[in-house]
């Protein structure tokens, strides 16, 4: 901050001394203008503080201490937290719109006010249990203030209200309202993917996790192969990671971790013996995911290992489902191919880690290969003899490759 201020003073002097033109001075001033620093601790404490207050308000409302009062008085009490939070929202919008701490706090309190007031109405009139609709209604009512104040803290609660409504008791595709509301939340998250100070990372993770739940549960409810949907989703995450700098890292990590974890299941034969499930709606959506993922990579002309691994896994599972090869001996073939793909992905990450000097890549590769080795070592489905031979061959392969690398390095040194 001090350095930037010094530089700005200097630019003023250069301009006065006519060393640089006013236009150049303006460009330099804009480029080196001190960035507005946000105290993350203050923002976090304001979020945690208002979250506590909001939850406290809901709990005090639930206590029902005022049951002896007439209905009109109880109704007025019920509206108090909502009206107070609305006054705060308006004040923050008009006077403190630049303060992230105020915006986040006001949006959380408003959400708590909505939850509390609707709950007290239910309490006063002894409304029957309809938890799903209750929280969905509260999520919808609190949405505009969250969007307008650009507050990301209540986003996780919002996704919960929408996903719970659409997924717990019904299929999301049969409830277009929930789907539309989820999309609104996801677009809001994407809008914040370029934000600073950890906001992008937070919204990226929240939307990735809720998207994962959405894809998984919807596939289960629609009786479609969950793994095909998940691989398509992970491929999309991997591809989309090239679009944003800050959020992209989170998308890449989640896409990679998701693909590798689900692929680990695919290395068991039982996975390829399960009954084949298909649904045209999900199949179309899966293809749309895939097309979008490929489209992003082509447009950006980048190769993302996470997306490639997901593509390979998706292709394998799709061939299995389309041809209907869920019986022996095909299951063994698919299991072997899955093991080979995962091993190749692990080795690729180790190689890429060494090449780029990236500890993250190298560790991802090491963890993948080690987990695969441990799983196969304890795998009771495969013959001990076959596993022994495969392990010996792989070991010889790795050692041979290592000695080849050492020889190549020596040769390169000698040539120098």
């Amino acid at each position: 901050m001090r350095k930037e201020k010094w530089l700005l003073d200097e630019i003023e002097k250069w301009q006065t001394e006519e060393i640089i033109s006013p236009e150049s001075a303006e460009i330099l001033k804009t480029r080196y203008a001190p960035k507005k620093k946000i105290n993350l601790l203050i923002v976090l404490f304001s979020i945690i503080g208002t979250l506590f207050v909001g939850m406290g308000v809901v709990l005090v409302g639930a206590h029902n201490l005022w049951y002896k009062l007439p209905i009109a008085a109880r109704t007025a009490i019920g509206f108090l937290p909502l009206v107070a939070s609305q006054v705060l929202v308006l004040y923050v919008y008009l006077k403190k719109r630049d303060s992230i701490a105020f915006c986040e706090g006001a949006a959380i309190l408003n959400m708590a006010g909505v939850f509390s007031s609707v709950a007290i109405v239910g309490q006063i009139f002894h409304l029957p249990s309809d938890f799903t609709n209750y929280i969905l209604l509260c999520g919808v009512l609190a949405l505009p203030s969250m969007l307008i104040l650009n507050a990301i803290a209540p986003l996780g609660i919002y996704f919960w209200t929408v996903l719970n409504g659409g997924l717990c008791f019904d299929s999301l595709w049969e409830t277009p309202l929930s789907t539309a509301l989820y999309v609104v939340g996801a677009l809001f998250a994407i809008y914040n993917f370029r934000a600073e100070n950890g906001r992008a990372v937070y919204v990226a993770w929240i939307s990735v996790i809720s998207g994962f739940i959405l894809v998984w549960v919807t596939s289960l409810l629609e009786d479609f192969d969950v793994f095909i949907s998940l691989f398509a989703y992970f491929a999309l995450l991997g591809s989309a990671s090239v679009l944003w700098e800050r959020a992209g890292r989170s998308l890449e990590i989640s896409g990679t971790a998701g693909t590798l974890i689900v692929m680990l299941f695919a290395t068991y034969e039982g996975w390829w013996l399960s009954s084949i499930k298909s649904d045209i709606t999900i199949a179309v959506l899966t293809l749309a995911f895939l097309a979008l993922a490929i489209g992003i990579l082509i447009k950006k002309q980048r190769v993302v290992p996470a997306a490639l691994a997901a593509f390979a896994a998706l292709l394998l599972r799709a061939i299995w489902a389309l041809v209907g090869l869920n019986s022996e001996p095909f299951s063994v073939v698919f299991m072997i191919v899955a093991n080979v793909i995962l091993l190749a992905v692990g080795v690729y990450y180790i190689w890429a880690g060494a090449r780029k000097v990236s500890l993250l890549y190298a560790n991802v590769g090491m963890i993948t290969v080690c987990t695969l080795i441990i799983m196969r070592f304890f795998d009771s489905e495969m013959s001990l003899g076959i596993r022994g031979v495969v392990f010996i061959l792989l070991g010889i392969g790795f050692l041979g490759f290592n000695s080849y690398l050492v020889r190549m390095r020596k040769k390169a040194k000698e040539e120098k």
Partner: protein
Amino acid sequence: MKKILLPVLILALVIQLFVPSYMIWQRYDVLKSGTEVKFDIGLFDPYDAFRGRYVSIRVEDAIATSFVRGRYGILEIDENGFAKISRVESEPPKEGLYLISSEENYFSFPHNRYYMEETLAPEAEKVIGASAEAYITVRIKNGKSVISGMYIGDVPIEEYLTE
């Protein structure tokens, strides 16, 4: 864009107020001008983190608990004001008292909760478990219904428990 945001925000806040107000108005109208009937009940005491502690109501009525097809429960009232569901229809009757089911395809009694102060709900469960005279009063208007009270004998349960 910024000029539009303030009216949108104000509209959203008005809707936030309107929705619970509308919920209140609908029920208040039934409470004020509906016909009151009584239902025999059994109950137990559960918990809702948002709305508080309540006693879960199970109406002692064969039809109300047997998933009969149809949405409209036609009521028969005895000389003491106690109601029974005499039959279930797919269309609302032109006259007489009836209840609208909480489910679309079969009849389900529309009330299952009576909210109480935190410490009173467990006590209510104990008292009503030992008493056969527990009932709820429900106000009904055009099939819509709102619970207006819970009684042991002729004493409101809140009074009964605090005395």
